[in-house]
């Protein structure tokens, strides 16, 4: 692992950076309970569409404070969401500040957060139309958006390895039947398949059910192409001499497939995994954006963006509503760079 990272750093620095960005994003998602200053569903009715709070070190008299501080905002024109900054009062930002009691990891309660203010509010990415803190919602949304990629990819890779491996190894009739089924899955445009699969289920499911449903739908779409590639690789690897040697040792067929053949596809499939995670993240975002995915008040990066659809007023007065889109972009481009770099590094011909 360290060796791979070292080679990644030397060979492809962008993908090395991307790796750490991905690690950072996942850490933010895991520790969202602790980092987010507010709960994801906490509505500040006095602060709809409040712009990002600026963090200051100098007050209006140019006096320097070592501890950063924020000013309070006041809604002056509710129709146009105009805010006034109250520069009289300084609200210092504290680390490990005491706040509302909240459950951490669903295990224990805590009332300390990474940062926050005692007076005033701190919305570093602004708020949405209901006055919910976008930064906190992004962290909680990351839990859904980022985990869907990992879980979806593991399900579809499991299916892909199993089905592709069997198909390639046995060949003949089995192969023919499986590949025709795969083609049926690949025949449909994946977007419409996704929509119609979602439409086949009731709309008013609980948020956890919707989450599971999306994962299953996405992996059902994703496994087919993968199974085909794995099948192709197995077809060539099964002719390798060490497979014949393990047959001559009397090793059972399934052990040969999963111990000797599948691991030899890893140099390709690790790359394929990193390159296909963005597809799942985007798939979830698309469904949520269309209102078919994760339902309010639970945040996901997709449904946070959905408010902006067809609402030019919001886009022009509150561009910070698009920040979740930036996070989608950042995650996907990082995964793509990482996959690209891994392809270079894991290919033994490049060592």
């Amino acid at each position: 692992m360290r060796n791979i990272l070292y080679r990644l750093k030397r060979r492809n620095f962008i993908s090395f950076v991307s790796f750490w960005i991905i690690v950072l994003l996942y850490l933010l998602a895991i520790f969202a309970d602790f980092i987010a200053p507010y709960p994801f569903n906490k509505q500040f009715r006095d602060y709809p569409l409040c712009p990002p709070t600026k963090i200051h070190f100098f007050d209006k008299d140019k006096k320097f404070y070592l501890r950063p501080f924020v000013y309070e905002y006041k809604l002056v024109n509710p129709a146009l969401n105009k805010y006034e900054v109250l520069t009289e009062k300084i609200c210092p930002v504290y680390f490990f500040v005491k706040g509302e009691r909240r459950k951490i990891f669903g295990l224990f309660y805590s009332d300390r957060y990474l940062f926050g203010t005692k007076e005033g509010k701190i919305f570093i990415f602004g708020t949405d139309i209901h006055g919910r803190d976008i930064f906190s919602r992004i962290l909680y949304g990351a839990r859904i958006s980022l985990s869907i990629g990992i879980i979806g990819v593991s399900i579809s890779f499991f299916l892909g390895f199993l089905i592709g491996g069997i198909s390639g190894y046995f060949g003949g009739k089995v192969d023919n039947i499986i590949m025709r089924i795969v083609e049926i899955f690949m025949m449909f445009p994946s977007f419409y398949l996704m929509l119609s699969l979602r439409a086949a289920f009731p709309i008013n499911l609980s948020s956890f059910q919707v989450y599971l449903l999306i994962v299953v739908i996405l992996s059902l779409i994703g496994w087919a192409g993968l199974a085909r590639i794995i099948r192709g690789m197995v077809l060539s690897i099964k002719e390798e001499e060490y497979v014949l040697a393990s047959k001559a040792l009397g090793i059972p067929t399934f052990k040969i497939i999963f111990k000797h053949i599948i691991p030899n596809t890893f140099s390709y499939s690790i790359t394929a995994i990193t390159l296909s995670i963005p597809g799942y993240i985007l798939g979830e975002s698309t469904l949520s954006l269309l209102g078919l995915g994760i339902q309010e008040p639970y945040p996901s990066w997709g449904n946070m963006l959905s408010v902006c659809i067809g609402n030019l007023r919001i886009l022009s007065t509150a561009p910070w509503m698009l920040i979740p889109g930036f996070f989608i972009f950042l995650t996907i481009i990082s995964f793509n760079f990482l996959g690209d770099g891994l392809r270079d590094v894991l290919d033994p011909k490049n060592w």
Partner: protein
Amino acid sequence: MEEILKLENIYVGNEELKILRNINFSVKRNEIVSIVGESGCGKSMTLRTIIKLLPKNLKILNGDIIFEGIRIKDLKEKEMNKIRGEKIGMIFQEPSSYLNPLFTIGNQIEEAVRGNFKREKRKEKVIKILKEMELSPNVYYQYPHQLSGGMQQRAMIAMALINNPSLLLADEPTTALDVTTAFGIINLLKNLVSEHNLSILFVTHDISLANYISDRIIVMYAGIIVENGKAKEIYENPLHPYTRKLIECLPEKYKKGERIKTIEGEVPSFKNLPPGCPFFQRCDFKMKICEERIPGEINFENRILRCFKYGNTLES
């Protein structure tokens, strides 16, 4: 001595090709038998017929394979898997490509161990056999690419012998190695016969190597056995014209500066075999009958021959 392996009237091929035709031979306990012939004579196919790992398009058409009293030709794949590795081991030509590059030697040999043993017991077993192969126990933790060709072949032999099989099929195990390493491997195999109560069926191009290692030599040509007899007798007094030519080509028979003879022509391809004796075109003693009929097996001077020069039996 009892026969542990017996092939009777084996025909291998499909509708179009016949790769092996009427193969009859047997291997006794603690005996080393060599199969000699040019490339494309069906030597490796004979081994793969015995272990029943023929390429998909080839089948055993006829005949019987009897191994330790069991007719393995009719065994199901599952039962065959019990014999492979446990009763019959196999080693191959190019050890580097027959070892999985992703796993350590220890891991791969351990995988071949049969029976329920605890982890430490398995490891002990593997290290014991590695020592027997004159490898350091360190090899257990090494990957195939970290070993030299000779060490890889020793590891392969260790893998094939971990369950104490009674028959070892060796498919040109020394062809890819240099001469001194090959010599080490050959001597190792020779010693294993008595230590492990083992019989070896050894395939090689090199008839002098076959003479060195084996008790009996089988000479194959284009899918038939042309001569089968005691190694020493065949080497010193070859009867079949093909065996004679093979021995004539050995470099050690020549003085310095002399030109080494070769056998003119090449092995006929299996797609258009001549109707008569397959060696007909290259033979110095060809007769009219050779062109039309395949010679049958005859017993001549304590060996089995297929040549009209020594008798007029026809292949049925």
